């Protein structure tokens, strides 16, 4: 037996990825279908002298990780639909104060308590627009256990690089499914450590004064530089300000620091299959991408020109890349398990939105190969 091969659930793969990335602090609250993440971390974190705490509610979990992040720790929380709703205000705080953190949402059926034990991809737009105010956000997903591991590591890297919360938008199927996970040797996947200030003690440190490259080196709470952190618009000292110039500059910075990198690595992650000469291009993500890949492989074997783009980064959406890749396709079909959320971004991206169609399933079951096949046949004029 090889020591580095595991057979685990997606939620466990997320734990492995977080620990590989250097997670030191986790706060959470039990909720289906993400609870396995906190259960495993309650066992694993104390072993590496990390901190685990089960908080009194979802809001408190989000707040606690932000507090811990300020002391220089890599932090994460995990939740599902209703808990993700509760975390939104504190998520906005992390965006405004530019505090690195990773928030996992293993999606279930909603709205409200919804369908806790069944799959849905209904929180895609919430991940984008859940907290109030104009903001940019990074939200990523995965369709295999190996990808969950890798995308989780990337989430930590992006959070640290861009000083932003990163949302991992998994779903019930992929969270609970077991599959092979190959754990790479430590150091094989590069890790990003926090950029800390080089300003010496006794010299003024401006926590929110950007370097020329737009980055803000941090200083850990408890170290020599003492500064203010607030959710109000703030100046370079981190002190509240309502000066129009400061408000404008900060809001622009919060958006630009993410959206300017929307189409480049490491923020932009996607996979593509059989796009060359594809007449129909399917776009999907998360567990529904597995059904799509299955279908596309079958159709390719039957000689049909059908391609597939699997989105791993959902937000920021790579509009130009999608536009270019879909330019020659007769139809673009978005496959997702909601009433049509990602499809809005795809319609905005392509030249002719009328060629974009939705294949969805919203009953709590994984969309099947025949669900997709039936619609494809209709588009091909073959009838279901």
């Amino acid at each position: 037996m090889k020591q580095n091969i595991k057979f685990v659930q997606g939620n466990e793969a997320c734990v492995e990825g977080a620990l590989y990335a250097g997670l030191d602090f986790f706060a959470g609250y039990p909720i289906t279908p993400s609870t396995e993440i906190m259960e495993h971390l309650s066992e694993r974190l104390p072993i590496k002298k990390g901190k685990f705490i089960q908080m009194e509610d979802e809001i408190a979990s989000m707040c606690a990780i932000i507090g811990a992040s300020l002391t220089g720790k890599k932090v994460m929380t995990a939740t599902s639909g209703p808990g993700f709703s509760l975390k939104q205000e504190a998520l906005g705080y992390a965006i405004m104060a530019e505090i690195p953190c990773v928030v996992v949402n293993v999606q279930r059926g909603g709205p409200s308590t919804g369908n806790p034990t069944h799959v849905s991809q209904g929180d895609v737009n919430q991940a984008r627009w859940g907290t109030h105010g104009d903001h940019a956000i990074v939200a990523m997903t995965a369709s295999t256990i190996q990808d969950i591991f890798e995308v989780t590591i990337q989430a930590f890297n992006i959070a640290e690089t861009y000083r932003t919360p990163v949302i991992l938008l998994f779903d019930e199927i992929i969270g609970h499914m077991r599959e092979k996970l190959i754990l790479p040797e430590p150091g094989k996947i590069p890790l990003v450590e926090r950029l800390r200030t080089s300003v010496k003690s006794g010299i003024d440190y401006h926590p929110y004064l950007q370097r020329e490259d737009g980055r803000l080196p941090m200083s850990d709470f408890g170290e020599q530089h003492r500064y203010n952190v607030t959710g109000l618009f703030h100046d370079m000292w981190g002190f509240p300000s309502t000066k129009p110039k400061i408000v404008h500059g900060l809001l622009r910075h919060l958006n630009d620091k993410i959206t300017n990198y929307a189409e480049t690595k490491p923020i932009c992650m996607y996979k593509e299959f059989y796009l060359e000469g594809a007449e129909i291009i399917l776009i999907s993500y998360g567990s529904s991408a597995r059904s799509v890949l299955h279908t596309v492989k079958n159709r390719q074997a039957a000689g049909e020109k059908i391609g597939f783009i699997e989105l791993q980064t959902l937000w920021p959406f790579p509009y130009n890349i999608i536009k270019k890749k879909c330019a020659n396709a007769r139809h673009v079909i978005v496959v997702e398990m909601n009433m049509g959320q990602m499809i809005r971004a795809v319609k905005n991206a392509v030249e002719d939105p009328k060629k974009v169609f939705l294949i969805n399933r919203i009953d709590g079951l994984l969309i099947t190969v025949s669900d997709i096949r039936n619609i494809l046949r209709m588009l091909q004029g073959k009838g279901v």
Partner: protein
Amino acid sequence: MAFKDYIRERFFPHIWCPGCGHGMVLKGMLKAVEKLGINKSNIVMVSGIGCSSRITGYVDSHTLHTIHGRALAFATGVKLSRPELCLIVPMGDGDALAIGGNHFIHACRRNINMTAIIMNNQIYGMTGGQYSPLSGVGKYASTAPYSTIENKFDIAKLAEASGASFVARTTTYHMREMIDTLCMAIKHKGFSVVEIFSQCPTYFGRKNKLKTPADMLNYFKNNTAKIGSEAKKKNPELIERGVFINKKMPEYCEEYDKIIKKANNTLTNTEV
């Protein structure tokens, strides 16, 4: 270090109204920290939202001005990841006990080593004088034009029942007592709660026949008494001041260290 060295003069003048009690709490708190001689780089002050929460910005420590009601949850994250730091969490009464009530009782229950200061002015000041869970029946507020019908919390009893290991009450009128109480609370190992009556002449006073700051301070003077004092015995209506609870109990971060040891021992055992 002189207490003035704990202040960020750059950010003055402060936002509080003339006569507000919060500046007095700021002074009392810094005097306590000065007395205890705590290095300002070892202090983390965490606050929520409201007039009270602006107190952190004026202090030259690590300061975290968070969202409404959640200061203790943020502070828990800071403390658990850096237990050697001194955590002080000043909050308003609505901040700590209405929107933040759940975090308050659970922080008490965990007995995590930090000091919660509740600046109780019995009103929401920043939003313009709405009644709070500490206003009490019969008080007037901008959302209680015909007077309130809601009972108020007894913060000391709530904290005690929730498991806080140090609980005290004082007022801005009793400055020396406030400083001494805060010294005890900050030194205490465990979750300490200090309720400080703080005057809001602008909203609470104006609407409740205590128009000037002096009226309000006199009100604190005349309507409170030390725990177990003769005055209290004579007039049971008086609100008690002093230390209600001061006991040694297992502290959260220390208990967590034991969990780390336990986890690593279990690991060695299974490997054998």
